């Protein structure tokens, strides 16, 4: 199981840690471990659904219904199985491409011009660079349906706005540091907004409420004014 560390996290969870950096490979290991553990916990109501992130997996459990040692054993076996699987081909990953149609700039992307100016680019260059990159869903968190995406071209990395907006509309596409992402819901936020999509990122009535699936590939497709 390589260099994974498994430690209690409070009295009702444990944390599997693969590292401490933002690295697509660590995120892939975390996802694979979470998937394996989710399968292994079938029939074990005392173990909650694992939560993968950049380089770790949170595993909630009911400490009065299962011992820490049992959950650690379950986690160790799941990590080992996942690591073995990762050496081959994981058919569950990277087979899906999600296309997100985006209206860049204007009222939908009020920070596009500022981002371009900061990098000495034309706004159309920013759009081209953002829309030509291939992104990967690393994991979901922060808000319902929000995906942490890897793959933003380094030339587009932009600090957050000095002052957050009180309300960012749902579907807003933004940049914050080395990340890009889409706000699934209207909420306060400090990301630089370069565009907006009508895609519904989260709908609790859907069997799969989140549009973004961990491991999937994402492309942003610019809508021309005639598409709108």
């Amino acid at each position, binding site marked *: 199981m390589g260099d994974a560390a498994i430690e209690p996290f409070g*009295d009702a969870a444990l944390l599997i840690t693969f590292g401490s950096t933002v690295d697509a490979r660590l995120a892939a290991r975390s996802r694979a471990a979470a998937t394996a553990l989710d399968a292994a916990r079938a029939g074990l109501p005392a173990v909650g*659904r694992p939560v993968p*992130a950049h380089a770790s997996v949170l595993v909630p459990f009911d400490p009065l219904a299962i011992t820490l040692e049992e959950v650690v054993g379950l986690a160790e076996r799941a990590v080992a199985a996942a690591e073995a699987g990762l050496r081959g081909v994981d058919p569950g990953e990277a087979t899906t491409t999600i296309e997100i149609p985006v209206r860049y700039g204007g009222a939908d992307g009020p920070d596009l011009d500022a981002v371009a100016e900061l990098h000495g680019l034309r706004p159309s260059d920013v759009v081209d660079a953002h829309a030509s990159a291939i992104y990967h869903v690393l994991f979901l968190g922060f808000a319902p349906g929000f995906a942490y995406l890897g793959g933003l071209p380094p030339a587009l990395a932009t600090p957050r706005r000095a002052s957050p907006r009180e309300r960012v509309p749902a579907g807003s596409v933004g940049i914050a540091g080395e990340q890009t992402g889409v706000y699934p819901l209207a909420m306060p936020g400090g990301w630089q907004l370069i565009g907006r999509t009508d895609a519904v990122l989260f709908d609790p009535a859907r069997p799969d409420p989140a549009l973004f699936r961990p491991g999937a590939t994402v492309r942003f497709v610019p809508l021309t004014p005639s598409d709108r």
Partner: protein
Amino acid sequence: MTSAVFDVIEGGLLTTVQDAGRPDWAHVGVPESGAADPWSLAVANLLVGNDPGAAALEVTLIGPTLAVRDGTAVTIGLAGADLGARIRGGRRLRPGRSHHVAAGDILEFAPDDGTAMAAGIRAYLSIPGGIDVPVVLGSRSTCLAGGFGGLAGRALRSGDEIPARHPRAGGPGTGGTGLVRPELVWPEPDAAGDTGDPDRPTTLRVIAGPDPGLDALAGRAWRVGTAADRVGVRLDGDALPDGIGGETTTLGVPWGAIQVPPDGRPILLGADHQATGGYRVVGVVISADLPVLGQLRPGAAVRLAATDRATALHALRDRHAALAAGAAALRDAAGWGALIDSAGS
């Protein structure tokens, strides 16, 4: 069959439908939600014969005003903080017991007699059978961040109706509604919540987290800040020394996690916490003390006491045993199963 039990005249500060929560959707970013004080939710439900995790109203600080529907008599369970519940023009409704309310009664929260507001900030109001709102992602709880669950994904407001799951057994006037249960008193001191004395600290027991610094955290006097809601509670006090707080690689975080941002002032994560977080986690409040966390009042003094896993599990077992003992005593007192029809009494 659903029937509305209450008409909402005023929603109060933040009154939401909450049950035992939806813990299994954090992997798509959904907060677990559920009662901020799960102990008091359980007590309120047991008082009217419900499962401990049935959907009830979580009332925050300034309670709602509810009118009991015509033709309806209902027994409500109350638990948690005493926020001044009363029948308008009539009797006071104390927490830790169930109360008959009659058609036309106005149920209000008016902390005006000096005895209310003694402890905590959240009260739970249950009705037999629980509140009938749709199950979304496995729970009836309101997800305020996502705008779903509960009553239209938001807090109660004027004009809403509160529907009961329990079907009416008879028509108006017959009294056989199934919404009326024996009036019962919770047999033990309903201990959740702070002391009400802002200078006597409330203690939360804490296990060390993935990041160092628990000793420094536990050695300081803290006070609940004004930024305190279902998502989290910010603590005010002397900032922790440099090097403890900071950002970290974003990770999944449990309810009760104590994040320390770069400014050195801790945040205690509540029931509506974000599924993942990017601040260092110096400790985690033990499960047995989460109900206490859910009752922290802005301005209250707080002490964080380092403890170990064995103590945490012992305390959690004690909580479960106390709940089971209370439930058994209520069943005995009620002669449960033979519902007492006291409509109109």
